[in-house]
């Protein structure tokens, strides 16, 4: 892969639900090894953006992953291409145990290292290891969020889409979660596209960010620039 091809390139992306258009031609990229944050008010279209990228809703424009077009690709094919999507509200499989959820994350894989990967995520998220035989539905919200992330990583993705990973988590758990995400990114070079309301923490681990307003990109810049931008600070950092 030549160095100048972004991992994910989105251009002129328009998408919506039936007659309602939500995204009006947005452009952004994720380079290999980057953490990119998308900020925006409720209803700005952040979730819709991730859904359009992972093929859950029809879209127009350009979505290229490693130089190949993903537009019109079914979600399971997108997953197999190396993009793992942790949807808003998690979507853990309530009736399956923690371990079964993790194994399911490796559904598209055909190698013998699934079991050792499961053990590795238990090391990263010890709470999951303690509860490996518990039904996912009976776990706390924070534990389920960790499970959803670990399950996504079980596919050994090249890019993870995280939709509000801090939703419903206690501040301390959120901090811990972002510490782990940052560490993952630094140590393995895993790329991430993160939608997050907790802009401070998200920008802390990010390289760059975009601010989405009513389906268009209003501000873009490096994480440090966004963290000091007055408008962004007022709207998302509560300062």
């Amino acid at each position, binding site marked *: 892969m030549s160095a100048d091809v972004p991992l994910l390139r989105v251009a002129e992306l328009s998408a919506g639900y039936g007659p309602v258009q939500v995204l009006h031609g947005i452009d952004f990229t994720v380079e290999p090894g980057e953490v990119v944050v998308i900020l925006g008010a409720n209803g700005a279209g952040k979730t819709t953006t991730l859904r359009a990228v*992972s093929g*859950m809703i029809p879209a127009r424009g350009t979505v290229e992953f490693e130089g190949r077009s993903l537009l019109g690709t*079914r*979600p*399971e094919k997108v*997953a*197999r291409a*190396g993009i*793992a*999507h*942790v*949807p808003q509200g998690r*979507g*853990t*499989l*309530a*009736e*399956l145990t923690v371990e*079964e959820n993790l*194994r*399911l*994350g490796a*559904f*598209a894989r055909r*190698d013998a*290292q699934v079991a*050792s*990967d499961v*053990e*590795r*995520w*238990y*090391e*990263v998220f010890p709470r999951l*290891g*303690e509860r*490996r*035989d518990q039904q996912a539905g009976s776990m706390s919200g924070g534990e389920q969020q960790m499970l959803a992330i670990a*399950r*996504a*990583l079980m*596919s*050994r*993705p*090249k890019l993870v889409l995280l939709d509000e990973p801090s939703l419903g988590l206690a501040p301390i758990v959120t901090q811990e979660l972002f510490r*782990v995400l940052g*560490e*993952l990114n630094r*140590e*393995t*070079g*895993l790329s991430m596209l993160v939608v997050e309301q907790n802009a401070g923490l998200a920008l802390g681990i990010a390289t760059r960010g975009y601010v989405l307003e009513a389906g268009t990109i209003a501000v873009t810049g490096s994480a440090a620039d966004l963290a000091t931008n007055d408008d962004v600070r007022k709207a998302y950092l509560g300062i």
Partner: protein
Amino acid sequence: MSRTGETAPGVTARPAGAGGAARVPRPAGPAGRNPAWLVTSLVLSVLGAYFFVYYVPQNYAPSRVDLFTEALFVGLAATGLNILTGFNGQVSIGHGAFFGLGAYVTALMMDDRAYVEFAGREWGLGDGVPFLATLPVVAVVCLVVGALIGFPALRVKGLYLALVTLGLAVLFPDLTKRFVRGTGGTNLVGLRGADLAPPDWYDWFPDVIADPLDDYVGARDQWAYYVALVLVGLLLLAVHLIARSRFGRALIAVRDHEAAAETVGIDLARVKVSAFALSAAYAGLAGSLSVLVARQANAGRVETFQLSIEFLVALVVGGTATVFGPMIGGFLVVFFRDWIDQQQRLEDLFDSSARAKLLSPAIFGIGLIVMMFFLPDGIVGGSRRAWRRVTRRRSHPIT
């Protein structure tokens, strides 16, 4: 890829990063198999094996053995429905049609007189084919037909899917009337005693199983029962393996959360259609078994519909998404129905008014409602909860 510190999972697509991670000792999971459970299950399985393998076929009258065989095949059809409805969440009230299809294919292959009239030609499907040889054919035919119906079913869900499958149950008897030429030109394919006799090699089995005093016709009920028992055993084992397999997890994932299933790379259409096909094959094989007891294949509108409902009732009463639940449900449904029919017959001796005729379905319905009230997750689910309560109390005596 080198790694330092306590976390360092290789999450890129390079498989080389996977080896070498030190295994942490497993934290103590939930208490391992406790001895009480082991002993109980051992004793139960020995008693169960004795009862089903020896006692039932050797001691009961043929009509009663037939009743057990019927319970086995109703349970088998419910087990098939469980794959579709219990594990995959697609409700069908049309499985009586697949059951009927299996029965017809078997009967048409065994019988030398009946045929299918299609495209201006007569298709005999075989004369005097041995029963066991019809089973692979039935399995394949029902897999294919199940898949063909599974594809359009992808478009509908829930109540709408229930209605579409109901259409199957309604349509199937008409199709047989249109195309099957059985006994006397009707859609009934009747078999003769000799067709249903056990094969010669059945005599090789030890006397305890194949009773030499029985003539070949007399041994029919035992032969049918043993065939059903073996087939059910194998197909239950298959469900047990499926439930723990990659495919089994995919079935459940699709049932619980379609979007989440897709995001881990599961092909929804393929999983749903496979579930339909497999489920239809189970129901079809159950239908084949029914030929050994009923000595015919016949599809009436009422019967096909009633069977479809019975499979669903057996599934729900026994416990959805469990391995043994639907089989237990099948036994309850068949024996309960038989018991009510007997009461009805007694009643009829004294009072043949319309009131008596309504008794059976009424008792059945009320029993079902009461049962669902006390055991909403079926017999297997209910006993699991009870067992957990007992064992928990034992392990924490001071609470």
